[in-house]
């Protein structure tokens, strides 16, 4: 492995003190990777492969800037590929078509292959339908021909997944899980935030939308560089919990909310692994909630041991403790980070449920949920989300969450609010 020279640091934030009879332990674990391997030092990075799926459905021609910007963005991503990174370009319609290389498989980036691929991309045209499951299936087959450690895909779409059922897409996602990481992007005004989140969530990537196609170039380059900056290819969160404990949830809490709970892979009776994909120079927060058998005053137990592992190598380790006390000054203390991420998770739910209710015509639920979302965004200082919400609802009083649904909302604004609902902010230093 190439994680040599990379330092993982983990920090636990929790109130370990519980009153008698209580057994629910919450903790936020912040894991940060840094080191020579991440800053271009002498350490060898893992081998990388990348597949770019470009939507070439008919709607990409309307307006024509979508197709032209998508081509420019793909060219920029190709240009950013380091020599030796294996890659391929797929055109997405109702079926997937391999644009480059000519024969099925991946090809190592060189000056020559990059130029050939860029030329092939300029010939793309917009015609046909949208079936993202087909595109992902082809990407999966292409990655299967490679032995690269970090496998990264970009999926760009401008519309909804019209030419296959949600079940078909879900089936494909199950087959692709753990095989490669996929970032999904929407461009234009007609994509579905829910679909993009579904794909990114299953394939451990990020989801976002860009109303203006001009932003694609920078975004594609950044995603490619991030993939090539991964220092450890396969990282898992390993969780030990004591006998008699129940895991209420394990969530990624930053940079975006991702419920990992159902992804547990049993290692032993008390140990489970949760795949996290590849790590670069980045910092992520995890929120863990474990229920342990209630102790008596003075008892102390280990409620969880949270490790980051690559294979059998332990990259970082944190202890989550429970101490029972009759000192209420201790047991009633609220940990700021735990409270903050509890709020951020509620914020994501409120936005998603509010938008779904709005789409279904349930004005009352939509107003209540989106009002709560506005309130939570204000409280946590999540200004980006507050701005997005203000395009969907008219904010009367953010502090109380009093809002009115806007009558005229650009479709893309609701989808942007949806796709970015899972993005979180960290606690502001002032409030800690």
């Amino acid at each position, binding site marked *: 492995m190439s994680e040599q020279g990379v330092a993982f640091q983990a920090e636990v934030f929790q109130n370990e003190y519980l009153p008698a009879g209580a057994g629910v332990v919450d903790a936020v674990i912040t894991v940060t990777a840094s080191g020579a391997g991440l800053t271009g030092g002498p350490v060898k990075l893992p081998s990388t492969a990348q597949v770019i799926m470009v939507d070439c459905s008919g709607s990409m021609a309307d307006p024509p800037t979508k197709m032209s910007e998508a081509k420019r963005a793909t060219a920029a991503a190709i240009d950013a590929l380091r020599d030796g990174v294996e890659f391929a370009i797929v055109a997405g319609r109702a079926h997937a078509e391999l644009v480059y290389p000519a024969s099925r498989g991946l090809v190592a980036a060189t000056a020559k292959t990059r130029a050939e691929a860029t030329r092939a991309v300029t010939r793309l045209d917009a015609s046909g339908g949208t079936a993202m499951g087909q595109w992902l299936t082809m990407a999966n087959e292409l990655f299967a021909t490679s032995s690269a450690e970090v496998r990264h895909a970009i999926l760009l779409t401008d519309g909804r997944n019209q030419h296959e059922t949600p079940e078909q897409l879900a089936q494909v996602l199950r087959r692709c899980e753990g095989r490669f990481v996929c970032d999904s992007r929407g461009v234009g005004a007609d994509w579905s935030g829910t679909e993009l989140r579904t794909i990114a969530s299953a394939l451990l990537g990020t989801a976002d939308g860009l109303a203006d196609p001009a932003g694609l170039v920078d975004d594609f380059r950044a995603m490619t560089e991030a993939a090539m900056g991964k220092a450890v290819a396969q990282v898992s969160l390993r969780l030990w*919990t*004591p*006998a*008699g*404990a129940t895991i209420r949830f394990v969530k990624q809490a930053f940079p975006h909310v991702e419920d990992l709970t159902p992804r547990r892979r049993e290692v032993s009776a*008390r140990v489970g692994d949760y795949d996290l994909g590849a790590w670069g120079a980045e910092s992520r927060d995890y929120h863990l909630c474990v229920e*342990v058998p209630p102790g*008596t005053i*003075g*008892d*102390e*137990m*280990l*409620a969880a*041991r949270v490790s980051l592992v690559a294979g059998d190598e332990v990259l970082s380790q944190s*202890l989550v403790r429970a*101490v029972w006390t009759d*000192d209420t000054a*201790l047991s009633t203390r609220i940990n700021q980070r735990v409270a903050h991420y509890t709020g951020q998770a509620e914020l994501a739910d409120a936005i998603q449920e509010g938008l779904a209710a709005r789409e279904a015509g349930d004005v009352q639920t939509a107003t209540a949920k989106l009002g709560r979302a506005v309130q939570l965004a204000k409280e946590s200082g999540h200004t980006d989300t507050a701005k997005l919400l203000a395009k969907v609802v008219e904010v009367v009083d953010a502090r109380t969450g009093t809002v009115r649904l806007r009558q005229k909302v650009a479709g893309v604004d609701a989808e942007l609010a949806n796709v970015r609902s899972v993005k979180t902010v960290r606690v502001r230093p002032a409030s800690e």
Partner: protein
Amino acid sequence: MGDRLCPACASAVAAGDAYCEACGQDLASEAAAGPDPGPAAGPDAGPGPAAPGPAAPGPAAVARPAGVWLTSADAPEACPACGAREFGPEGYCEACGQRRGSAADHTELDLGTLAAVTDRGLRHHRNEDAVGIGTVGDRLVAVVCDGVSSSVRPDAASTGAAAAATAALIDALSRQQSPVDAIVAATRAAQAAATLAAGAEPGSNPPASTFVCAVVADDAITVGWVGDSRAYWLPDHPADGGGSAATCLTVDDTVAARYGADLSVLASGESLVRWLGADAPDTTPHLRSFTPSGPGRLLVCSDGLYKYRPDADQLAALAPRDAPLPAAAALVRFALDCGGADNITVALLPFPPDPAVTVPADQAATVRARDSKEVDQDE
């Protein structure tokens, strides 16, 4: 790792260090006295029996009186909560997560001429008291520590402090230091160990313990203490027979003792004003030397015993005239019969010491028991 051990607290020290990083002991003056490997028992009570151990093995020890000591420090082999035998490196049970304690629920230490018994009592879930006894030539030592139950992991502080202090006393006395100097060094070692029990992040409520120790020589009894564990003089013959009267030799570091008995009616009257631990404001030991006019016994104990009979005369009447071990066991039994509301620790040392009945190291006995009784939940 350094080649040397701190003579006060047995922490490893680097070759060039002038002061011990753990306890602040002046190493330069020790170096002048010659290299010293120190006692084997360290400040942190690791797994495995910490005692008995002959003090200061090596060539330097030959010229010194041999020391023998025992302590209650003993990390259990099986988890007290679930019986599993595997513990993680951080000291938690790998099966049920419960923290591994520092000592057994009940321990009896027997060096023949002196003995000690410590017991969990009937109300507490863990024995947070700790005790050590030892002999150097014809001098006897005892250390009793009572973990402050409002602190985190008090048993780690008390066990660490008792083990470190006992080893330090033995070491200092074997190097012909005065009892007062030995007690000062032992207190420093105990404070270092209690501080180490807090780990790297002491938090707002780090492990804390009381501390009392005694050196019994043929000419005097010397006691030192921080907190409210006590030492009592119990004469063999009543005062009207011409001997020294039964008396408590220590004065509690409590609000009531410091500001007047009137305050003892307040709930805070028994609150400690001094203790050992990472957050201790003042850890200088109180010192007292006492020369009895006749034979008797020194009782060193925690409040688990004296809360039922605080008066010295009553305790003198209560302690049976048996050998030290059965007498100490009887006092513990008495406290249990009174309700056993707290952990109970009793050490009994004869005055004048009688080296003839001191047992050699290989016959020193430690009896441990765990979960010998259920915690009594109703009054």
